[in-house]
């Protein structure tokens, strides 16, 4: 079973490769969290909320995070000085669903996934776009789930959940996304 007899040759190639080819000037790969933070910002532009989502025209557009915050300053940076239809974008962080009041987007960290049923029930009758990076979140009724496949961020969108909350998701988001249905037994 003697495969690959030329191993020392291979080693030389690796070393030579590392030394010789430092010329590629491509940008370094960003982290999952950076790209997800920018997606959260983009959702504010590619999803349409019903007018009753805001109590007053001066209300801010709130991106909430419940559970551990995976984004840190990156999300604040992404929404800094941005506004949507006159509503200033702000980020708010909640320790549990009981603290959450009106927000347009709610990111449910995977640390809160054990309480997902409770969270979704509390958001019933609210026009809140729910987003999570937890495995299987979209099947369980979360509207948009981040998944990392082949080192790229994929969107899994539960259109039924979004529609039930009165939200309209732009085809710009839907086209490259994977459309997921809620498991029948879930409800």
């Amino acid at each position, binding site marked *: 079973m003697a495969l690959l007899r030329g191993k020392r040759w291979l080693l030389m190639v690796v070393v030579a490769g590392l030394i010789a*080819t430092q010329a590629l000037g491509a940008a370094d790969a*960003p982290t999952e969290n950076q790209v997800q933070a920018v997606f959260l910002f983009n959702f504010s532009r590619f999803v349409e909320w019903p007018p009753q989502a805001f109590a007053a025209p001066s209300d801010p557009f709130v991106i909430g995070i419940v559970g551990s915050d995976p984004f840190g300053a990156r999300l604040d940076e992404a929404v800094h000085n941005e506004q949507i239809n006159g509503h200033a974008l702000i980020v708010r962080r909640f320790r549990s669903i009981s603290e959450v009041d009106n927000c347009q987007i709610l990111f449910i960290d995977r640390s809160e996934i054990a309480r997902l049923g409770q969270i979704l029930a509390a958001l019933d009758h609210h026009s809140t776009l729910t987003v999570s990076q937890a495995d299987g979140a979209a099947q369980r009724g979360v509207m948009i789930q981040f998944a990392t496949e082949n080192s790229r961020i994929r969107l899994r969108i539960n259109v039924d959940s979004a529609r039930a909350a009165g939200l309209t998701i732009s085809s*710009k988001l839907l086209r490259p996304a994977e459309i997921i249905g809620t498991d029948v037994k879930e409800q």
Partner: protein
Amino acid sequence: MTGTIRRSWFVSALILYGGAATLAQADNASSIGELKQLNVEDLMNVEVTSVARHPEKLIEAASAIQVITQEDIRRSGATSIPEALRLADNLQVAQKNSHDWAISARGFNTALANKLLVMIDGRTVYTPLYSGVFWDVQDYVLADIDRIEVISGPGGTLWGANAVNGVINIITKSAKDTQGLYVQAGGGSRPEDLADVRYGGALSPDTQFRFYGKYVDRGSEVLANGDSASDAWRQGRGGFRVDSDASAQDKLTVQGDVYEGHEDEQAGGTSDTSGENVLGRWSRRFSDTSDMGLQSYVDRTYISNPAAPLIIGGLQFAGPGIFQDELTTYDVDFQHRFRIGTANSVVWGLGFRYTHDVVSNAPSLAFLPPTLDRDLYSLFAQDEVALRPDLSLTIGSKLERNDYTGFEVEPNVRLSWILNPNQALWSAISRAVRTPSRIDQDFSEAAPPHFVVLEGGSDFKSESVVAYELGYRVQLDQQLSASVSSFFNHYNDIRSTTITPTTLLPFFFANGLEGDTYGLEFTSNYQVSDTWSLHAGYTLLKEHLHVKPGQTDINDALNETADPQHQFSLRSSLNLPRHTEFDTALRWVDTLHTNNGPVVGTVPSYFELDTHLGWHASDHLEFALVGQNLLHNRHPEYGFPDPSRPEIERTAYGKFTWRY
């Protein structure tokens, strides 16, 4: 493989008894501002990295669990599962020679270490010959491992007998996540040759498959005087996995592996190993809070080891021979999870295992009877009660019936208190047992009609532990997380080697030891920046075993432990510009007491360093240069200090990885 039935240990014990007794922080070129300029489709095509581990998933677990992720494994440069297990701070990992490893949690890491339960995709891989693990034959295409969960502390309630000091759960990726071609090849001073190939495809939109092959050729380690330890080995393996989302609720998995290996033995001759297994699993999700799983597997393993003659004091009691073992395991498990009201989450299950073990005895070494069939039935139930939103109590027990000792009960009580989303306290009291294995009752050295000097004890019963644990986890912010687990364990009926009254010989195994151990495990991750993460780990372990009143142990209670009191690790993962990554892992292991019979021997404490330099030349091609054990030409990690003790050499290898 041979380290397991290593006779020298017993023989020496007899002889001794009868005789003399940087880091520049790279700028992250892709700023949030630049990413915001991209449209949705471009954003989805941005390649992302994840240096961050995911402790947040663990924050609420009420046990001392540590998770080794795929990214951890890749960046460590590990080429085998034992090497990857060095990434868990709550394990003691020592390489004995080129092909044998000693791995345990919370101590008892002897040549016949027997208190860990190890599973690969739900298939138990410890051998009922001695309740230990043949680490040389547990392998996989490491890139297809999703994660390795390492739980220190008893896991008997959920996992069953043998989960006395810990559980290692190796979980491979679903076929859906291993699509396309993956080729990795390389070599160097060790491993000399390494080749992995995997191909994954789809049978239908809902059904994916992969198959793989792996070949490793590893050279010999050396002795203290620089001579070869003559323990080179090579192993080939292959396998497949098919996953199907049969419906919205149902998932089906079928997987299997085959392997064959040949290992040169220091004492002369070659060991042969081979095995096959096939496993099927059906899981059905009824709702958010209710699901069930049914799993069954068949596993066959074969080993053939040269057995040295039994010579004591220059007198040959039995000649050399070949020892062989062929074990076939049939296992079926069922598990069901559901809720009662809003506060109770119940999980229960049933299991049955049948093992058919056939040994071919050598004159000097035997298991009697040579053929043995065993049945194991198990039933468990556990209820997690939400006392308050932040406080949950878990109560459960396993009930097991085995052919050696009849019924065994392994209960636990766990309390988890979530102080806030970033901090949790947990505590547990649990009991677990190690039921007898073949060595405890059936062992015979040498085989009759030769004179028997050591044999199993026909009355050998289960060893047991009652463990008290207290743990704390914190995620200070996204940058810093830490976890500390402490334990106090009381062991009873631990194995001793005692004497036959009046005739002295044969010596036989009994349950003559008891004692306490205590210690703590600390682990911490610090994300210095988007491109740099640090990890630190420390374990403290104190062991106090003694001979029970009225009992005898010819080894003075010194032969069931071989562990460092302290060990720590410090690791750095750095993403450099131009798609380059650099990882270093420094470890320090305290003095190891590897006693031989009642005679104390040690492995000196040591520092060691591993490094990994990787370069992603393109989306498809990656190069890596790995150095292992760089601080010494060679150092011992295990074994009684004599001239035949193998030492582990400094090694380096290079490899390329092609993904398409």
